[in-house]
């Protein structure tokens, strides 16, 4: 166990090193002079010089990387150039918002996707099936920002039921929080619901033609019990795996949705930072995300190790 852990941990160091070099390097490839871009319309010469010195822009790239990584190793991801706030603080402020959004989106996706999948598999070839397929295709091919704006026009402007955009913390007002999250979560979950529906449908179809389902029916069980208790359980295994994998994608997919609904989350943080050339924020956020992925991978490996005795060698 100890050796396995040490081995895995040792592998993390070069991985993160490479990631940091990559992030830093790609950032340098962005065209234009960041100092000029940040200095604003006036481009005052003294401001440009100050920014170049402050962010070591006059030094060669490897030296700049050295400065950055030294700070990172000291737990300091730097400070936003635009609003002069520590990047770590920004990340901790925005991350919970995006996690909430992705969780609610996943909830919508699971409820809609799995229900539609079951219905279309059970009623294969009927108008229900076609309808579910059309809806799924629509969900897959609808751009997030377009759907978002349409929903805002309907539910906020026309009907006045939901706030058009913005975010309220659940600790401040839970009801207002859910009201502000329901449209963005639906929009974000929408495309994924369609994917889930397609997967549930094909898994269900496969399972429904399996021998044990036929046996269950032959035993005289009610169709409802056969479908929900016997077939669905097995059909859900690949669907749940997919759901878990897609959760990460939902987190990163929140970028557009957050922009449309003005939700101050992780996605909006990075998009705004890229446009404003707030490059310490971009580097910090990407490095943080990479570290989270690597850590989660390590935890998954550990879980396999603990669950599967054959891996223990």
């Amino acid at each position: 166990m100890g050796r396995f852990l040490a081995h895995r941990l040792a592998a993390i160091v070069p991985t993160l090193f490479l990631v940091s070099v990559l992030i830093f390097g790609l950032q340098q490839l962005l065209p234009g002079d960041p100092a000029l871009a940040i200095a604003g319309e006036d481009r005052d010469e003294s401001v440009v010089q100050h920014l170049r010195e402050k962010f070591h822009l006059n030094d060669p790239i490897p030296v700049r990387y050295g400065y950055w990584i030294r700070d990172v190793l000291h737990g300091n991801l730097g400070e936003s150039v635009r609003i002069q706030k520590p990047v770590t603080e920004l990340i901790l402020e925005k991350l919970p918002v995006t996690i909430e959004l992705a969780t609610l989106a996943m909830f919508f996706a699971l409820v809609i996707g799995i229900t539609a999948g079951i219905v279309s598999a059970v009623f294969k070839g009927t108008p229900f099936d076609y309808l579910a397929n059309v809806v799924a295709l629509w969900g897959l091919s609808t751009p997030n920002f377009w759907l978002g704006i349409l929903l805002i026009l309907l539910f906020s402007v026309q009907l006045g039921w939901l706030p058009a955009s913005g975010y309220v913390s659940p600790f401040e007002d839970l009801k207002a929080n859910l009201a502000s999250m329901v449209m963005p979560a639906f929009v974000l979950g929408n495309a994924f619901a369609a994917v889930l529906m397609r997967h549930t449908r094909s898994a269900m179809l496969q399972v429904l033609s399996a021998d044990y389902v036929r046996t269950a029916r032959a035993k005289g069980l009610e169709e409802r019990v056969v479908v929900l208790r016997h077939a669905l359980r097995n059909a859900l295994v690949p669907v749940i795996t997919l759901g878990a994998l897609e959760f990460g994608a939902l987190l990163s997919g929140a970028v557009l949705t957050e922009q449309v609904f003005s939700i101050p989350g992780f996605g909006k943080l990075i998009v705004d930072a890229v446009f404003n050339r707030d490059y310490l924020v971009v580097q910090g956020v990407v490095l943080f995300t990479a570290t989270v992925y690597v850590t989660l991978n390590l935890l998954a490996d550990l879980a396999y190790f603990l669950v599967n005795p054959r891996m223990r060698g």
Partner: protein
Amino acid sequence: MRFARIAALALAATLPVAAQTLRVGLGEDPDVLDPSMARTFVGRIVFASLCDKLVDLDENMKIVPMLATSWEWSADGKALTMKLRPNVLFHDGEKLDAAAVKYSIERHKTIAGSNRKGELAPVTSVDVIDPLTVRFNLSGPFAPLIAVLTDRAGMIVSPKAAQALGEKFNTKPVCAGPFKFVERVAQDRIVVERFPQYWNKGAIHFDKVVYLPIVDATVRLANLKSGQLDFIERMAPSDVPAMKGDRRFRITQAVELGYQGITINISGNEHSQKNPLGKDARVREAFELSLDRDAIVQVAQDGEGLVGNQWVSPKNPWYAKSLPPPKRDVARAKALLKEAGVTNPSFTLMAGTTSDAQRVAQVVQAMAKDAGFDVKIQATEFATALKLADQGQFEAFVLAWSGRPDPDTNLYQFIFCKQPQNNAGYCNPQVDALLTQERVTNDAAARAKLFEQIAAQVHKDRPIIYLFHRHWISAYTAKLSGLKPVPDALVRLQDLKFN
């Protein structure tokens, strides 16, 4: 029933008046809330609630008293003496006096990374004459100074708070405006609340103002329509017709202080030599004559703009009326090209990737073609475009300048020989002499005459072809009254209230 009504009325009478909050939708999240460092337009909208300035602009672009009640230039134009308003307090309870003004101006001039350094460069020192009188000493006469003080350079910060917070002043800005800072959540909201000891508190009718950055113009408008916002800035021109018909809302359109135009590289470097436009003023004239400015405004701005041909709009008091925009004349353009001996002139027009800049470039391309120009559009991301422009690596460039109250600050750094933003590479000793003279002249009529002479020469040389001035369109609920349409498009909270 009657009893219930009386009871309700009695209850209403005993309750305090409900706290009134104004919710303002901004087009982007402002940058640092420190008047010395700030550089964005949206930041200035927030400062209008937090930080009063020495002087302000009114609807007619006249400079009016704010923290300073009167001012006077010395005979040689090298000193500006200002009388300060008595009994003004900062949000932290400190007194605003001449020492605080001296401190703020020195802070603007010295703090690392200050964006005010350039604007205040001619100010060499500030003297405290008495607690309510300050004198700005200048290296030489500098007429634009008073207009500069209508913006962030004229904002006075509390010396005590600024010293205590240092570089972190932006986390809790303390000024002498009608509202004091409460909180800021990046990309989400900025909240300010009424400052009870404000010197002009009778003009303030809101208890709280919340600024919400919403980048998408459609979503910003949807928020206004659904009643979640009371005011939005920068509405999309395409939404104007629909909103004009809606009686629940009002629209104001202020002509911007800046301009939209095309800078032409005439520096004589290889990029200017490579194309006919950079080499021959007649070709530039032909190019200008091929353009229909009205059509450009229609296509690029849905008609929401004002045709112009100078660095200030025709509505600005500094506009030289004797030099109106030329009409489109394709035949004359062709004749000029023939005279210059140029056949099939071709050049590259660099334009930002925003839809506004691209639309201008495309309509210019189509119009110039009628006169025989082959315009190639080079869509360039803005940081790259700035760099290429600064290095003179372009032939022509669609540019926008957001504008300042004084005409000099729309012109000098773009036209005077070797100024950092003189991307055209324009150097005309005659224009430089006129610019130098205009800066040292405090007499408005004499200055206007000098600007007219500059315009006449710049129209001949055409380092920049000025095209039009955008409308800043704001929309707000019809419940709101007292909004002053000042051309700088800031939301002044004085006298603003719900009916």
